[in-house]
């Protein structure tokens, strides 16, 4: 079985980010005083629990980033032909989830569809009833056994997960000498998570744990696939916003005068245009461009991905203003501090003052603003998908999920699970990111760590 690796634009960006993070980590490891605040992060149980949750999301996102195409069985003139469908390692791992597609909506753990259908019964009469699902609980012959079966599988899977968790603890304690794994909160969080994952894995093979959507796709699968889109929107957009906001905001605050005037005019003008209109206009232009150059994209996935990356750029270009304004204000305050004047009296260059004195002292604002933005961006994607200028309709994201679920909210009985799943996953992701950023900010604030250093 052969395959061909596919690198989408967003994949390359993510690998670039990973490489940068790796280099930064390597640099920090070699400098004890830079490592110190991270040790404080490691000691905070809130930080470590949220990091654990975050890393699960990251793992899913990263596995979903390794793309490839399978070779098709037939060949054309000795040359291998690859499937037009681009899959990721994650897709392969959860193959049953991806392929077990029902006809239409079904409730979580349901054995039947959510809508009645006309079908022939044993006697050949046409009756209207809820048909059994093709995959969900198909192994059960007796419908009444479902609850017992769910419980049994959950217990078995959970137990296995717990066992794996305990085993990994045992191994890590032997090798790591209980460095950070000793924290009770972290240990119990790990065990709860492994148990939960075990139970879900064991159930998901035969049930639709979170139900199915309109075209019968498993909602759990959709939610997990949405994580990558959310992470990309959050991080790549940040990558665009951050340099703009940081550089322009700090420069405006520090240099004052005409530099300040120009930067202020730019962001005042930019933020006075209704952002949804601006984004919609830019997205439509971008879409036109992509449609006109269809030959640039040999694969459907590449086209969808190009649209995602462009969306990130557009969101980035329109959303740096608020952070820029915040940083300008803070810099105006900082530039009057006496340590800046001391540096000026040494003739230290402006660039160096900006990077050595001002930027480290505005980082706490940057960190908090970025995490807040992260959640706002994931939500913005949902809003934009709602008005039809978000990600490509073929791309699975929280926005498309919510948008699809929205139409069914008015239906009686209500289809609630798609929305609830998207809500739950986003909540956990954003909450974990917020808590982690909070802990990191505290660890980096020298004033809060006075007592610890004194001892």
């Amino acid at each position, binding site marked *: 079985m052969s395959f061909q690796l596919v690198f989408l634009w967003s994949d390359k960006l993510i690998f670039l980010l990973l490489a940068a993070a790796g280099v930064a980590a390597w640099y920090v490891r070699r400098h004890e005083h830079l490592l110190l605040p991270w040790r404080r992060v490691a000691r905070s149980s809130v930080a470590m629990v949220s990091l654990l949750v975050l890393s699960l999301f990251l793992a899913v996102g990263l596995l979903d980033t390794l793309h490839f195409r399978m070779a098709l069985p037939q060949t054309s003139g000795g040359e291998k032909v690859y499937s037009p469908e681009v899959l990721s390692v994650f897709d392969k791992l959860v193959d049953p989830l991806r392929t077990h597609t029902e006809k239409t909506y079904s409730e979580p753990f349901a054995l039947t569809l959510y809508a009645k259908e006309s079908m022939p019964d044993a006697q050949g009469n046409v009756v209207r009833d809820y048909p059994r699902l093709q995959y969900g609980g198909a192994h059960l012959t007796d419908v009444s056994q479902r609850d017992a079966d769910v419980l049994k599988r959950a217990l078995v899977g959970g137990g296995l997960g717990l066992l794996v968790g305990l085993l990994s603890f045992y191994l890590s304690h032997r090798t790591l000498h209980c460095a950070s794994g000793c924290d009770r909160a972290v240990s119990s969080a790990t065990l709860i998570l492994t148990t939960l994952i075990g139970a879900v894995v064991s159930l998901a093979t035969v049930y639709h744990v979170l139900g199915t959507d309109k075209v019968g796709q498993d909602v759990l699968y959709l939610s997990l696939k949405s994580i990558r889109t959310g992470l990309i929107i959050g991080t790549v957009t940040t990558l665009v916003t951050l340099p703009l906001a940081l550089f322009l905001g700090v420069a405006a605050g520090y240099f004052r005068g005409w530099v300040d005037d120009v930067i202020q005019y730019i962001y005042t003008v930019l933020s006075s245009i209704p952002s949804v209109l601006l984004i919609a206009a830019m997205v439509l232009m971008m879409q036109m461009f992509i449609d006109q150059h269809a030959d640039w994209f040999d694969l459907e996935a590449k086209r969808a991905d190009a649209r995602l990356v462009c969306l990130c750029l557009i969101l980035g270009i329109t959303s740096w203003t608020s952070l820029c304004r915040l940083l300008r204000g803070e810099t105006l305050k900082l530039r009057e501090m006496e340590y800046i004047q001391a*540096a000026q009296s040494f*003739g230290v260059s402006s660039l160096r003052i900006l990077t050595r*004195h001002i930027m480290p002292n505005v980082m706490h604002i940057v960190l908090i603003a970025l995490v807040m933005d992260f959640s706002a961006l994931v939500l913005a994607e949902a809003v934009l998908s709602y008005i039809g200028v978000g990600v490509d309709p073929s791309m699975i994201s929280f926005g498309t999920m919510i948008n699809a679920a929205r139409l069914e909210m008015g239906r009686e009985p209500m289809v609630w699970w798609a929305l609830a799943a998207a809500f739950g996953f986003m909540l956990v992701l954003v909450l974990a990111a917020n808590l982690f950023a909070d802990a990191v900010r505290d660890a980096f604030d020298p004033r809060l760590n006075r007592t610890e250093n004194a001892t």
Partner: protein
Amino acid sequence: MSLFKVDKLVTRLRNGATIVDGISFDIAAGETFALLGESGCGKSMTALSLMRLLPDGVVNTGGAVQMDGAALFDLPEHDMREVRGGTMAMIFQEPGLSLNPVMTVGAQIAEVLALHHGIKGAAANARCIELLTQVGIPDAARRVDEYPFQLSGGMKQRVMIAMALAGSPKLLIADEPTTALDVTIQAQVLQLLRETQDTTGMAMLLITHDLGVVAENAHRVGVMYAGQIVEQSTREQLFAKPLHPYTQKLFAALPDARRSGQPLSAILGSVPPLGSITQGCRFAPRCDKAWALCREQTPEWTVVDGRGVRCHLYQSAEERVLSAESPRASDRTLGTQHSVFSTTHSALLQVSDLQVHFPIRKGILQRVIGNVKAVDGVSLSIPQGRTLALVGESGCGKTTLGKALLRLLPATAGSVQFAGKELIGTDAARSTMQMVFQDPYASLNPKMRVAEILEEGMSALGIGDDSAARQTHIDGLLDKVGLARESKWRYPHEFSGGQRQRIAIARALAVSPQLLICDEPTSALDVSVQAQILNLLKELQQELGLSYLFITHNLAVVEYLAHEVCVMYLGRVVERGTTEEVMRSPKHPYTQALLSAVPRIDGAGREYVKLEGDLPSPANPPAGCHFAPRCAHAMTVCSHYPDASRISTTHQVHCHLYNK
């Protein structure tokens, strides 16, 4: 019969550290009781405990407070609200922060009147005007409708006092009421407080760190240290003969002219952090008379000759004799040693007719419609190894002058020559002049370690060949300013105020300057720490032959440290001369007023020259002699700016009184 009585007051942090530890005192009607102490010793927390206004996380855990027979700690919160502002009022340190900026002065006073006396409407307005007049605000009928930003600092503090008086309190708690004010304004406010007390007969609890203020206003004094009152006596007794070693040290640490040859007797270290000492006397680690007992056993409150003291020295009669004469054990012989540098009197820094103007712009086209003449034609010169003090009230342009010399601000006109080289318009010779800033908490980047802070100047100016050479240099600097070498890997917040100022001095010295501009380097520090820093500066001058331009408003420091003095008023130098000449026989009326406004601990008998009003705005200074509108000797000729008159070869004054 005392009006107000505090008995064994204890206030703690919720986590257990004791902030105020068993304080007892009483105040009679018409009496001023001063709580004297350095920052962090629990003075303000005592005041807040008495008002039951403690911040979150701080709780009262014991003691009783009697006000006019009523136990304040037993009152329900509703009744306590009547007491606050009604029978007890409080004024705070920072008048700029104590008034609501969006309410008129009158409305804020009327609030108190409505609450405590039920006076409203026209009657309240009339009473407001009456109160403002009482606290000496001119044109009160107009001021009553003004907002706080329209008033100067001194005016705001007067309004605060008027607000406090509005409830006709029996006890006024004044928490550092003059610390944020200039000396001339401080003198006005202190006098106002005395007069108000005379007319209303209220009791006053005065909280201060300034021995001079105590000498002016207090009847009885409690000296606080680390949450305890260590000594309590009448003002006369305290100033005649302080008993507790801490009080003795505080007096000894005060700089003044008589000590200018010798180092000040600084108290080692700084006030211990809250709750860090649980056993023994809290002053023992810094006390040079401490013996084993002091570290083991907490001294009891002892009454000697009708005054109380908390010290083992006084617990048995024999030892009292021993302590009465306090030889200064920490005196070093540094003062007698002569500087290795011959003090040549050729000017190292020569400033002539320097002007720094800030344009005022207005309108869409930002046209310049005027100038704030922050520095308006100042000339001065500093010889090598000498100290020139630049004295004046806030807003007179002394800091602007310092910054212009360092070219942190562009000079509008004039010349600055350093060792014969013109500096204005060039970026050369940055290493020859450096600055030590006022606030050691703002002058060090919190995100940089000490070594990085010290290295920055060297790398910017290309001093030192490589990193290793610089590190050796940094070690040397830390030795020089009296800090441990290991401390270079720590962050600034791990140091106390005094230590931070040492780091700031080391940073300036890192590039081997010949002239240090010290901008109020001790005004943010406690008296005992101030003495350490002044000693250090003096040592460095003798060792390295440094020249100092010492910018300050603290005249005692000037007498102690400076060789020459320039007095600035509204951007101009009004008088200059040697320290002896200016301090002993001031000629300019402004200098005379400034000197007389300084509270002296030897107090009585000085003639107080009252200065009316506030410093005019430098955007719109009075024509001619800037001081004329506030001057008692103003003449018609004062509408022209006076030329310099020579009193002696070194003493010059800009005043028509001395024009021949």
